[in-house]
């Protein structure tokens, strides 16, 4: 209920299914940035990128690449954009992870450009340190036993499904938290 992509899977949508396998669906939706846009998404209701298991993410990427080639060749696109909108702040309007393949033409009126900025040197340095520190923290965590990531990716999924569910619940909470922190 309320998830546009789950509705497609359930056959309760006007979207047209292009491809389907055990884990993943490719569909042409009617609520898009531009006609010809194609969405690749896992069947499982996974809200954000950080929760998508590695194997499914890789599969979605490979499918998106194939879609991109097909769109180049058969839809006469002069270019393609791939876009993941991850989180409310990023314009995510469906609570279900998906990769959008957007066919492009010269002067098609679609504005996916940003204004390049010039940041102060010290702001760049600060950002760099923040990211490096966080990476070190994340990688440090990975060596500890039973981090959420490892469970989601490895065999333990089968033997410890309960733990995985707990971790999945923790992750969206984290995201929500980060949303609440915004002034």
């Amino acid at each position, binding site marked *: 209920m309320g998830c546009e992509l789950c509705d497609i899977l359930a056959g309760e949508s006007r979207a047209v299914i292009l491809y389907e396998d055990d884990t993943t669906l490719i569909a042409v939706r009617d609520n898009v940035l531009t006609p010809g846009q194609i969405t690749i998404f896992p069947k499982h209701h996974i809200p954000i990128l950080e929760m998508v298991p590695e194997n499914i993410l890789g599969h979605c990427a490979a499918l998106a690449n194939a879609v991109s080639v097909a769109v180049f060749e058969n839809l006469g696109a002069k270019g393609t954009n791939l876009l993941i909108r991850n989180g*409310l702040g990023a314009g995510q309007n469906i609570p279900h992870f998906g990769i959008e393949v957007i066919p492009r033409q010269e002067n098609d009126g679609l504005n996916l450009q940003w204004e390049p900025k010039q940041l102060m040197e010290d702001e760049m340095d600060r950002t760099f340190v923040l990211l490096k520190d966080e990476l070190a923290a994340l990688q440090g965590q990975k060596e500890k036993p039973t981090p959420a990531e490892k469970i989601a990716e490895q065999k333990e999924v089968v033997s410890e499904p309960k733990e995985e569910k707990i971790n999945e619940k923790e992750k969206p909470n984290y995201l929500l938290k980060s949303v609440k922190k915004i002034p």
Partner: protein
Amino acid sequence: MVDAPPELTEEQRRELEKKLKSMTPDQIQQLQKQQCIFCQIISGKIPSKKVYEDHSCLAVLDINPATRGHLLLLPKEHYAIMPQVPQKELEHLFSISKLLSRLQLRALRVSGTNIFIANGPAAGQRAQHFMIHLLPRKEGDHLLPVKDKLIDPSLLEKVKDTVQDRLSVLLGKRISSRKEDSTEPASSKPELVEKEMKKQQKPKKNRASKKREIKEESEEQKEENSDPTASLDEIAELFK
């Protein structure tokens, strides 16, 4: 980003064209590499702020970012556009994108990230080196001010008819082969994913079957890769 080269005379231009035509794809790729600013960043000839690096890719802070913390994830190998990137490498790049996105969410306290790829100048691609943009996002930052809109449902079938044949060739004719599953109740979906995970992980335990699978996969890839080459040239042409 780079200073434009001086204008060529008509004669020089023709000569260059002739030269380019006589070059093998490998040679052309070598030439592109030499002139690619991002290859020079990767080799360290141009300094950069490297946030993440491994054997096959590098993530740096964009020097002209859309916003604070804008990262560029670059494969170390020079590819002009995504279809040229081998599947395994692309999968790795997406996996690292996930890591970097998490990094941005946590370190920069933003409420979202965009993973963005541009293939071809019409899509806004400015450099000839394939890359993934990772944009930290906050509500109201108006970075990608695009809105979904409803399109005529008749267009959906048209898109399907136009694309499906080519897609099914690219994906090895696996299209819509599991219709019966789509009618299963929602409650069975988690099991479905777990089942699939089990399937994909079992080979790891069994080396012999893993090897076999890799063999099959590489053959599959060869087929996939050999197929679209003709049109890839066309796409690469778009840069000229």
